[in-house]
């Protein structure tokens, strides 16, 4: 207040020189990383939309007869593959989601230091890293081959996809359960709740948004898998809506077989199928966001 003329003994100004440059460089690198990540993403989306959009029509999505590769675009459609993908994925989700959530609840809430829980947890970790084609081969060996020709079916595909989803769901649910603060569990226990009550009325509701989005991510990932379906669902060109009997087809399988073909019509159909698959995954994830937003009403 008094000695205005006094030189301040400290300096509050932004430091210049090397320290500021370091800051600039680090900031620049972060933006660069952001752009680098965006490039492949945008490129893939652009390519698929640019090349696939013209194939998309109501007929393409609904017509149940997939034309031979030589036919130009406009004949038949991917309806069989769309139905196949939706059915196979939905049934796989139906099997894997409850099982995965229950498994994670067991490992985290009930397992404790129990060796059995540790083994399951370890197996789930290992299974996340197993290549998807191995899942296909596994189901092929234990389910398809014993039944001979009748073995190929949508259900076999669902089994393979469920094997693929299961570890992902266990893993993500486990992480979500870990995030539920312990003081919430204690609050419930202190009111005389049993363990199952605590899990059902406190832990799962608190974790539900994460569990739902984790599960749907696993579903979306499985929906786009080709390898597990190669050996399990067979290949047909017409609609087979019966999940449990007879070979069927799926969008990834059709992308695979059409894209390999030299014919223009087939390639265009492959792009169209790719766009359809991306759209399905997108719709799934979008739904997940809406659903979880509803569930998290009370978390502030």
């Amino acid at each position, binding site marked *: 207040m008094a000695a205005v003329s006094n030189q301040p003994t400290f300096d509050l100004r932004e430091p210049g020189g090397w320290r500021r440059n370091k800051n600039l460089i680090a900031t620049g690198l972060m933006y660069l990383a952001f752009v680098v990540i965006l490039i492949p993403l945008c490129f893939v989306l652009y390519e698929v939309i640019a090349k696939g959009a013209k194939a998309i029509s109501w007929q393409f999505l609904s017509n149940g007869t997939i034309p031979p590769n030589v036919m130009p675009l406009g004949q038949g459609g991917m309806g069989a593959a769309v139905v196949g993908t939706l059915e196979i994925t939905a049934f796989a989700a139906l099997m894997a989601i409850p099982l995965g959530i229950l498994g994670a609840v067991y490992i985290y809430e009930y397992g*404790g*230091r129990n060796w059995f829980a540790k083994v399951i947890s370890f197996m789930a970790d290992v299974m996340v890293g197993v290549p998807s084609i191995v899942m296909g081969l596994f189901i092929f060996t234990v389910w398809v081959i014993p039944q001979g020709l009748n073995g190929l079916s949508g259900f076999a595909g669902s089994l393979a996809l469920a094997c693929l989803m299961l570890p992902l769901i266990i893993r993500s649910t486990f992480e979500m359960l870990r995030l539920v*603060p312990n*003081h*919430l*569990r*204690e*609050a*419930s*226990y*202190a*009111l*005389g*709740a*049993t363990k199952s*009550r605590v899990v059902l*009325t*406190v832990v799962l*509701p*608190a974790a539900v948004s994460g569990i739902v989005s984790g599960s749907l991510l696993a579903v979306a990932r499985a929906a786009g898998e080709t390898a597990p379906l190669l050996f399990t669902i067979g290949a047909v060109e017409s609609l087979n809506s019966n999940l449990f009997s007879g070979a069927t087809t799926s969008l990834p399988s059709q992308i695979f077989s059409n894209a390999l073909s030299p014919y223009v019509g087939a390639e265009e159909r492959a792009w169209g199928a790719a766009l359809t698959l991306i759209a399905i995954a997108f719709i799934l994830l979008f739904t997940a966001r809406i659903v979880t937003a509803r569930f998290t*009403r*009370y*978390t*502030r």
Partner: protein
Amino acid sequence: MEQPEQKIQLTVPKSTEAAAKQDDDRFTGSPVFDANSVSIYYGTFRAVTDVSLTIFENEITAFIGPSGCGKTTVLRTLNRMNDLVVGARVEGDIQYRGQSLYERGVSPTAVRRRIGMVFQKPNPFPKSIYDNIAYGPRINGIRGKKTLDEIVERSLRQAALWDEVKDRLNKSALGMSGGQQQRLCIARTLSVEPDVILMDEPCSALDPIATGKIEDLMHEIKSRYTIVIVTHNMQQATRVSDRTAFYSVLRDDKSDTRTGVLVEYGRTQQIFEDPHDTRTQAYVTGRVG
């Protein structure tokens, strides 16, 4: 502040119970808890050694002492909350109204249903205010809307919170202030009409005004409940409690171990004005801790 316990006399207390009984000519209530040489372990670590004390009905009993002296551990043993900690183990006998708490066949759930707990950090569920209070009755099988409404109103009134929240019962409990959240947690504990309420530093996260409200509340509900409170605030202990138990840390330099012990237990007035143990005196006069 650095490891003050080392400076003071390192003896395990003789039975402080006898001393407490001597002073206790005005004693009225019947015993609720009767702990007899209780030691509590976490794995191989002996957190608390040889605690014996009696807690009486319709009284507020305060546990005071420096950090790490095991007062919270003892508190959590009284409603078997420590069962939830992996590796926790209790030796000795704790009687609750004549029944052994750690006997074979005793259900922790049934114990906690009668002996409620309020925690250090307010921990309302991420649900509406109404659902927070109705949670306890619901898990105990009460379903009727009318009954639940009554319980919610009664509990919130007892916790002096009703007037503040009656118009927003369906709003999230997490939108309340810290003091309100803590009173909500008390109301939630009251909703199942427990016999005993254990409070683990219930005011440590609150400002003096919210603290005052909770202390008033404790005085008000004292006639119906038995309260045990852990506190770091000695003024709070003198304000609210009838009896005080002073715990301390006992260090053994040779084996480099430490454990919590009950140094002195008696009427709050006696503990603060005429402590029998030098360690108690050092602590309550603020020379240590």
